[in-house]
């Protein structure tokens, strides 16, 4: 009798429960706890691996896509890029790390004021204190979770490289600056959208050069310093290339290797290095023509559905990002569709037909991994920012180039506001 009930529970009832209810049920008795912790059930209910793609907004914020190994797997997931549980509408993804997302309100291109850290699987969210206007309208955010007990959000404005840093154990935004070596800007540019890794690292691929600039927001040693790394040689200089960087599975923090891919009209290469930027080894190389012969469905998209069109459209084959846990899979955009490419099988698996990702670049792609158990957002200490009610305390002014004294004063100010 118990067998029937257990199976009924695990197959039919528990998967239908929302996350909070499921966790509460597991506290109700040992039996329910055991059911909820069963590896097969927990994997199906909580586990996710894939990438979010947040297409560029023009007038209004666009809904993100979640891409995973196949469209079948995607259909089986309990959520598909659904941010509607967040209190604001019009929120878009800025970064992803450790099973959590950093989201912000897209304000028609004006600086964002409200940022959130959330877990799209458990639907838990935390609002960060309001952000004052940034020094530039170009910016990106990096979220990192340290030891499961605290998290940090770094907002980098560029090309001016000012930072505003939020830490969950101070509950404040503080200003910093990236220290650049002298003459840096004469040789390198930060004026391109960087690819963001889960390790809290940003990578600016230098146009027309086989180099990338790397900035790790968690490196305490050099006070947020910047590195230059070498990339594998471009196949044909001057020919339009679509280049992409990614961190390998388990790549938490710089120094654990990197993955790189580029594609132009004729060839598609994948490279890997075990130490960031050194000793790139070519993992795969395939000609686009051969790939299209092996994958006729993809070929129709490359010719834009016109069999009479001669060669492929220029620059149309765009590697978007690497699958975060399955290093055989790379996500590729073609006109009108997005695919999962398997390096081992040389197959292009159609994931979705859409035109929304046509202008997407690797900078719009956020690898996302959620384990087989619920990930909790580290609590924000001393927080007047409750989950349910966002009290308007006015923005905390954070001027650029402030000294330590001023930072102390702000902290005292915030504390007295709390009491």
């Amino acid at each position, binding site marked *: *009798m118990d*067998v*029937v*009930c257990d*199976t*009924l529970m695990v*197959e*039919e*009832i*528990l*998967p*239908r*429960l*929302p*996350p*909070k*209810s499921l*966790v*509460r*049920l*597991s*506290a*109700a*008795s*040992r*039996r*329910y*706890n055991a059911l909820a912790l069963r590896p097969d059930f927990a994997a199906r209910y909580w586990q996710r691996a894939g990438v979010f793609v947040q297409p560029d907004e023009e007038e209004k914020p666009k809904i993100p896509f979640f891409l995973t190994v196949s469209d079948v797997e995607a259909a089986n997931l*309990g959520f598909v890029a659904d941010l509607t549980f967040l209190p604001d509408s019009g929120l878009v993804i800025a970064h992803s790390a450790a099973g959590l997302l950093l989201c912000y309100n897209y304000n028609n291109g004006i600086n964002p004021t409200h940022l959130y850290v959330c877990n799209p699987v*458990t639907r*838990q969210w935390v609002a960060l204190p309001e952000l004052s206007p940034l020094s530039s309208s170009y910016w990106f955010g990096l979220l990192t979770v340290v030891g499961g007990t605290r998290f940090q959000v770094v907002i980098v404005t560029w090309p001016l490289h000012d930072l505003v840093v939020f830490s969950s154990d101070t509950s404040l935004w503080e200003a910093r600056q990236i220290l650049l070596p002298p003459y840096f800007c004469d040789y390198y540019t930060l004026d391109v959208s960087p690819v963001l890794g889960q390790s809290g690292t940003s990578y600016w691929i230098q146009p027309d050069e086989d180099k990338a600039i790397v900035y790790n927001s968690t490196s305490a040693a050099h006070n947020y310093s910047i590195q230059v790394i070498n990339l594998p040689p471009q196949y044909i200089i001057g020919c339009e290339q679509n280049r992409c960087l990614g961190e390998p599975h388990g790549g938490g923090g710089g120094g654990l290797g990197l993955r790189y891919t580029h594609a132009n009209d004729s060839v598609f290469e994948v490279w890997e290095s075990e130490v960031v930027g050194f000793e790139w080894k070519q993992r795969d190389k395939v000609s686009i023509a051969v790939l299209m012969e092996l994958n006729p469905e993809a070929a129709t998209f490359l010719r834009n559905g016109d069999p009479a069109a001669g060669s492929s459209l220029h620059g149309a084959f765009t590697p978007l990002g690497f699958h975060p846990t399955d290093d055989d899979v790379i996500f590729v955009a073609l006109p009108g569709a997005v695919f999962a490419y398997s390096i081992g099988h040389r197959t292009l698996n159609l994931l979705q037909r859409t035109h929304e990702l046509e202008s997407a670049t690797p900078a719009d792609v956020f690898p996302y991994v959620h384990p087989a158990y*619920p990930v*909790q*957002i580290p*609590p924000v200490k001393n927080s007047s920012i409750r*989950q*349910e009610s966002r009290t308007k305390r006015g923005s905390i002014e954070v001027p650029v180039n402030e000294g330590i004294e001023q930072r102390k004063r702000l902290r005292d100010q915030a504390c007295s506001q709390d009491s």
Partner: protein
Amino acid sequence: FCEICLTNNCDGSAGKIATMIALVSSDNERFEVSEEAASQSQTIRNMIEDGCADGGIPLPNVTSSVLAKVLEYCNKHAATTTPDAASTEAVIGSAGTRAVLGPARHGPVVLRAVPCRAAGRRCPEGCRLDEGQDAGADQATFKIENDFRPEDVEKIRKENAWAFEE
């Protein structure tokens, strides 16, 4: 693909020799149904395939009045190849059940398994009972005894504080 029994092999072929399966309700009433009809529930079908169905399948969650209504629906549905989705005589859906959780505090938690219209693989959260449902339909009610020690419950609540807020 059949939207109502959620299988690809919904096969209402008449003239097939029907194998009968016995379903036993919580008040020990036996209902003989055709294997086809009973197989509309994935769980029951698994049991049949695993050979566990001899002697009848006990359904301690379901009273005889509820089971009777469910079987009426399943029988009607198993016999037809094109289910009439708009049929108002379909009172209760087939395999779909929805668990309704009472607030979890220390002590017993009430879990109601309510038969609801099978609305696809994931039942929408706000799924309401079918309008056609008999107002007097029984609900199977469970009382769950909390066999955790208080400190164990506390541990779970702490580890997942987000789920116990509000």
